[in-house]
């Protein structure tokens, strides 16, 4: 048995522990320790990335069929670690602010990511659950990190209670599956209920029920409606950098894990697409109508993320490699946009009360940021030739191919509605006069990241070919 397949997770996890240990020994003595731990965590991320790239070419199944590593998982992990690196990179200002607990903060980010990586690689419901919990427990702590803020504690508490409920649902689903099929391994389940021998082994209703419970729990994790209630509160309450982490790394890994679950478990999913369509339609409706009335910028972005998840779930509803590739592409573009737009939040000085209207006149006070943010907003609204258009285009094409025309039309109409509030942000920045100018920090690293993410949104049109081809190859 070789451990190579799981080396990246081990590296990241033990790296996190190493930083914690260093904190215990040197944290009090060295004044600049936060700086060292920041650099150290970046270094660990880089090493992890190198290990991941080693795994790209080969497929390995280890630990008695419980853990799998192939091109798709390596690709997903590479993206997750890359996103983590960017998040850590732009967190320097925040780390400086919370010097005393900086090591804990960085370690939690890394542990949450390694939990997400295990989740992606899981080939067994037990590993799946362990990965999910490892990620979720770190996320609860991260949400409540800002101890002095009431809202942050509230966010952590809310997230913890609802998250535990979701975990309970997941465990109940897994036990149903185990009770009626005798196994929790993806491969064994696929062998049992493969569509080709469907007559011999029809899926028992209880097992199907179990699967639906598992998927429901995942819907909670990716904050799809009607399991979205925690999202706006948690996004609002957490520190901006933690929100960025939620929207990028946590969301990306959870969606990829769900996608992998659906693509590895080749069973007769007959009828289950209706669940996905229902959830997708609800998410789109909540995302587009909910955001219109939001006054807080973070809550607005939270609702917008629910709408995006609606698109992804709609893509999942039409099972097939093409739509899964479209979903992955969508998540890549969404993570790209999120890094920019949530990253902008970390620049704001008074982030607790960041109302949408405080963006007014940003084009006068800070033209570069206003330009980058408006590119990101037009891209999320899905206006060509920006990246957001193509992500929607691929999803719509895939689902129309699978005969879900009517839902494609509804989804596109919802995206027109949501264009309204993205336009509102552009309007505030460009058309209105500055009332009380937004106080922005002067972090050049964050600004650079925002600008680069806007730039990639602009030029992604030229790289669609290689990007889509490689995603299709990974699947």
């Amino acid at each position, binding site marked *: 048995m070789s451990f190579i397949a799981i080396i990246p997770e081990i590296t990241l996890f033990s790296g996190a522990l190493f930083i914690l240990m260093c904190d215990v020994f040197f944290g009090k003595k060295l004044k600049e320790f936060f700086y060292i731990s920041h650099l150290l965590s970046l270094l660990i991320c880089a090493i992890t990335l190198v290990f991941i790239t080693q795994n790209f070419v080969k497929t390995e199944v280890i630990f008695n069929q419980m853990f799998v590593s192939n091109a798709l998982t390596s690709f997903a992990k590479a993206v997750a670690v890359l996103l983590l690196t960017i998040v850590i990179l732009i967190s320097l200002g925040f780390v400086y602010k919370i010097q005393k607990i900086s090591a804990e903060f960085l370690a939690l980010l890394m542990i949450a990511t390694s939990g997400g990586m295990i989740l992606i690689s899981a080939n067994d419901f037990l590993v799946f659950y362990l990965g999910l919990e490892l990620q979720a427990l770190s996320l609860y702590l991260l949400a409540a990190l800002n101890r002095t803020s009431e809202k942050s504690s509230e966010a952590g508490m809310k997230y913890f209670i609802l998250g535990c409920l979701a975990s309970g649902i997941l465990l109940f689903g897994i036990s149903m599956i185990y009770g009626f099929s005798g196994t929790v391994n993806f491969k064994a389940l696929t062998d049992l209920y493969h569509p080709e021998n469907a007559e011999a082994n029809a899926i028992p209703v209880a097992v199907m029920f179990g699967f639906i419970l598992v998927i429901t729990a995942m819907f909670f994790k990716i904050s799809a409606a009607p399991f979205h209630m925690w999202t706006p509160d948690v996004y609002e309450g957490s520190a901006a950098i933690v929100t960025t982490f939620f929207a990028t790394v946590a969301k990306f890994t959870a969606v990829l894990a769900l996608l992998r679950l659906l693509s590895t478990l080749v069973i007769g999913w007959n009828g289950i697409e209706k669940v996905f369509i229902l959830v997708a339609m609800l998410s789109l409706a909540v995302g587009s109508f909910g955001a219109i009335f939001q006054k807080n910028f973070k809550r607005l972005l939270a609702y917008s993320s629910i709408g995006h998840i609606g698109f992804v779930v709609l893509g999942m509803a039409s099972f097939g490699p093409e739509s899964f590739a479209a979903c992955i592409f969508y998540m890549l573009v969404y993570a790209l946009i999120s890094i920019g737009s949530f990253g902008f939040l970390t620049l704001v000085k008074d982030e607790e009360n960041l109302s949408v209207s405080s963006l007014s006149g940003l084009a006068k006070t800070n033209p570069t940021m206003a330009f980058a943010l408006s590119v990101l907003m*037009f891209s999320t609204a899905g*206006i*060509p*030739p920006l990246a957001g*258009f193509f992500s929607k*285009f691929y999803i*719509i*094409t895939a689902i*129309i*191919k699978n005969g879900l*025309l009517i839902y*494609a*039309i509804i989804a*596109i*109409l919802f*995206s*027109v509605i949501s*264009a*309204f509030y993205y*336009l509102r942000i*552009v*309007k505030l920045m*460009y*058309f209105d006069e500055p009332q009380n100018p937004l106080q922005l920090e002067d972090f050049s690293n964050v600004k650079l990241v925002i600008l680069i993410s806007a730039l990639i949104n602009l030029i992604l049109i030229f790289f*669609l*070919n290689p990007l*889509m*081809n490689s995603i*299709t190859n990974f699947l």
Partner: protein
Amino acid sequence: MVVNLKNSRGYYIYGLFISLLNLVLSCKLLFLFDKKIADFQFTEIFSFISNHDIKYFVGIDGISLLMIVLTAFLTPICLALSINSIQKRVKEFVIAFLLIEGLVIGAFCALDLLFFYIFFEAMLIPMFLVIGIWGGENRIYAAYKFFLYTLFGSVLFLIAIILIYIYTGTTDIVSLSKGLKNFFPLPYQKWFFLAFFASFAVKVPMFPFHTWLPDAHVQAPTAGSVILAGILIKLGAYGFLRFSLPFFPAASQYFANFIFVLSVIAIIYASLVALMQEDMKKMIAYSSVAHMGFVTMGIFSFTRQGIDGAIMQMISHGIVSAALFACVGVIYDRLHTKQIKDLGGIANKMPNFAMLAMIFTLASVGLPGTSGFVGEFLSIVGTFKANKIVAILATSGVVLGACYMLWLYKRVWFSEIHNQHIGHISDLGKTELISLGLMALFVILLGILPNLALSFFELPSAQLANLIKP
């Protein structure tokens, strides 16, 4: 050429230089273009999304060539007219206009449906900013209305494009216009036609989808109105010619009467509404709706005269309405009002301006000898062959057009001076004189020698007319 980009004039000079360069290049196309070839010329292909067989494919025929030249002609005029009136955020203004020019030209020469859509949609962004940043008091409402209306219309177009792509496996316009006409059975064709129609009808705009246009025009800055009336709304009519007719001939025929009715309503209703307007820009905006009614009517007559007339009307209206909006801009710069009741007797103080404005007014009315006449006459003749009642009703629109335009001219340029400020105004400056003068020159030139333009699109329009026998 060294341009000092520090001051606002430098940006204008830079923008003018680029757009004039574009004009020279597009005029070169006019000479290189071979009128005897009906197919697309100067084509270029790059693979864009290979596993979806979507290509970057451009090329032009006679129709798109003239539209490109019109675009390249109007953009420098827009910039030249704004030098004195727009002083804030000049850099962004020039960028927005050059962007619009590039995207419009891209849309006119795109030979791939998805690329057409990308250009068609992308120009919403700069136009939204132009209306919203440099517009009038109520600019935000107008900018939203413009953006959301157009976006709403075009999403159905996008779905139709994706469906066509899924069924045929290509989005290549050349092969689609050859192969698609018998591909779908009639019921499907009708749905596709309606999806395309939703997008183009909003853009043209046809009655009853026209309500965004007056708002957008009134609030937009002068240059924004010029480019909107001159070029952007032509894209809708161009879409009908390039896609609806060749792709879905049977459905086009099926819906022809429906479109006739809408066009006639647009012509008569918009003319009547224009009569009652107090705001000059709003009046000209409604006259645009009426004139575009002639275009859609001509296109759906499926006769050579009708289609020729429609294209001619597109070009003529592109110049004339752009010029009229520019005239309003000239008055607004001096007197800061667009209300008709505040004006009167301008001709006394600005004789050159009054003369040029007279030419545009008469062209808008459709006086023989101006380009407006050729377009309206041909499209009415074409429609007369197809449907006599419609043609007769549409002709009444010409009379109504004369009513409101001449009345407007009388109230603004003649009559007595009510407004004491008019006593102090000066006649046209050099840039204004040159740009308006050039437009007037083309209006008369195309009125006397319509063949200058007609010869370019003889073959494509004959092809379109042959597709469908009414």
